[in-house]
């Protein structure tokens, strides 16, 4: 027996090593269907230990190389290659001015939205705190779309934090080490994010395909979806805040696995293969971050009057357009005329108001027969009409029944504007 092991020791060692690794793989992989398996999302203690060792061995050297490269390129870019900087600075200043004006114009809408959200009990969460991190390494495999950043548990990072760039979302933190973290990119097949198409408002799940392209799955075929439509985060996955840029629709194809479903390939807004610096969203709150509030205040102070003037001008333009439209449309009630001379009662009116024809066999459902009387002589009575209380919008203040000859005073609420009875809000009897 001893001679067997001595003679075939090479093969025995090979088989032992292979067997140990196969058993290790069997522990990590979970079966999800006929012939299909998936990797357990959470690493076991043994696997985590191996990853920790590998990271501790490789990451410091990688960070050192990366920092050396940054230092060299920084020296070149910050001290030597400074041509056209003045022109760029002027262009950027103009862009800042334009963006400040846009921010000042939009802030009222945002505040109104927040007030409405508070009324409906819905609280949208905004990015409150981010942490900038440098990307210093990758997995080294084209089958694994993960990368490493130079911030870790010691900087307050945790699993499942969103990682973004100013261009769009990038991924989420998958594993955290003491001084670094592993980020799973959105183009990896094991990733997932809730997204929504901007125009059609169709929701789906974003994940990567085996070719490393982000795609949206779980969508029923819809011919409204066109290439070029923007894709945003939907906010339902508890990782990415709502409304962040994801990319745009590149192409739409049939889902080969499910009839009636389509797969949308997305061109990511962030340059996933050229990432240098990313932002990790460490905190989301239902309010703007202090930095954003300061920016908004600055924009309002600098561009507030200008934005208000633009807003007033827009309202005036709308009113003017409405007046022009009103001149071209026929009216049934003229507030300047007495009640008996209203165009409503003009026999020459080409579209007179007509009562519905009498029922041939009236019953208790016939208008005007709500009390149960089924007399054929009874004239049909319109349903009671209510007028809104002007002091308390949304509260019904009074109820009245219109006469056969509606008077202008009855039809007009306290605002003095003439309203056709049919235009008034109704309450179900």
């Amino acid at each position: 027996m001893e001679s067997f092991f001595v003679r075939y020791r090479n093969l025995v060692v090979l088989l032992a090593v292979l067997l140990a690794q196969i058993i290790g793989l069997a522990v990590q992989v979970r079966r999800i269907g006929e012939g299909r398996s998936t990797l357990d999302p959470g690493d076991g203690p043994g696997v985590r230990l191996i990853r920790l060792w590998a990271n501790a061995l490789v990451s410091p050297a990688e960070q050192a190389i990366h920092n050396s490269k940054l230092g060299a390129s920084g020296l070149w870019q910050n001290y030597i290659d400074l041509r056209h900087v003045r022109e760029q600075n002027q262009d950027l200043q103009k862009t800042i001015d334009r963006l400040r004006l846009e921010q000042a114009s939009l802030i009222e809408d945002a505040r109104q939205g927040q007030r409405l959200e508070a009324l409906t009990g819905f609280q949208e969460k905004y990015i409150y705190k981010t942490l900038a991190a440098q990307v210093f390494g990758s997995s080294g495999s084209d089958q694994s779309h993960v990368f490493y950043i130079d911030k870790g548990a010691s900087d307050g990072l945790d699993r499942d934090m969103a990682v973004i760039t100013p261009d769009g979302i990038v991924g989420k933190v998958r594993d955290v080490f003491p001084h670094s973290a592993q980020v799973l990119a959105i183009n990896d097949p094991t990733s997932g994010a809730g997204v929504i198409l901007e125009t059609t408002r169709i929701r789906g799940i974003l994940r990567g395909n085996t070719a490393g392209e982000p795609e949206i799955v779980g969508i029923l075929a819809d011919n409204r979806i066109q290439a070029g439509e923007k894709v945003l985060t939907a906010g339902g996955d508890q990782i990415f805040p709502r409304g962040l840029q994801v990319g745009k629709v590149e192409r739409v194809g049939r889902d080969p696995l499910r009839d009636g479903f389509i797969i949308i390939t997305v061109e990511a807004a962030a340059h996933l293969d050229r990432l240098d610096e990313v932002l990790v969203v460490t905190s989301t709150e239902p309010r703007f971050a202090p930095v954003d509030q300061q920016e908004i205040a600055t924009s309002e102070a600098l561009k507030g009057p200008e934005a208000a003037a633009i807003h007033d001008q827009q309202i005036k333009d709308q009113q003017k357009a409405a007046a022009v439209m009103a001149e071209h449309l026929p009216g049934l009630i003229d507030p300047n005329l007495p009640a008996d001379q209203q165009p409503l009662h003009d026999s020459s009116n080409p579209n007179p108001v007509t009562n519905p024809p009498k029922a041939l066999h009236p019953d208790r459902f016939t208008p005007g027969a709500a009390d149960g009387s089924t007399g054929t002589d009874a004239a049909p009575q319109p349903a009671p009409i209510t007028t809104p209380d002007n002091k308390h919008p949304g509260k019904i203040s009074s109820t009245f029944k219109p006469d056969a000859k509606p008077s202008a005073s009855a039809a007009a609420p306290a605002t003095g504007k003439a309203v056709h009875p049919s235009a008034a809000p109704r309450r179900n009897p």
Partner: protein
Amino acid sequence: MAVLSAGFRRDLEIRRYPSLVYGLVPLVALVLQAWLPRILGRFAWFDLPLVVTVYFALGRRSPIQGTLMGASMGLFEDALSHHAIGVNGIAKTVAGFLAASVGVRIDVENFTVRLLLIFLLSLVASVTYAFVTRFLLGMELEWSWLTELFKAFGNSAIAILTFPLLDRLQIRD
């Protein structure tokens, strides 16, 4: 055919290196393999840990050492990804064992033989990786023969540059 004869095999020397080389060269290969794809993007058609595994397996001519070297390099590569630990490990274990077994039988001092070996073993490692992922684990895998061929050519090109450099590090009597 002298290079393939059994008599010649006995005369083949076993290369020896300083201990530091055994530690540093694999580490540098792992670090560069993780760092360079960020610079080269999808054109990173090489596998430095495999090149180093094959080099040491051929030089040491010990299948056991080749097996252990390949397994440890592969496991570290797997640990840096988010995939199951062991897929690359198995692929490189097989490559290391085969390289050392071939190194015992033929003269690997010949540069052309070395290049041919690294090319073939790259393809063997790729096929093993695909086999383990698809059939053993039942997971999806994007597979392109063209990419794997480019990777094998890339490994050969790197071997042309690095093997002579590494040869200089060996201990000579």
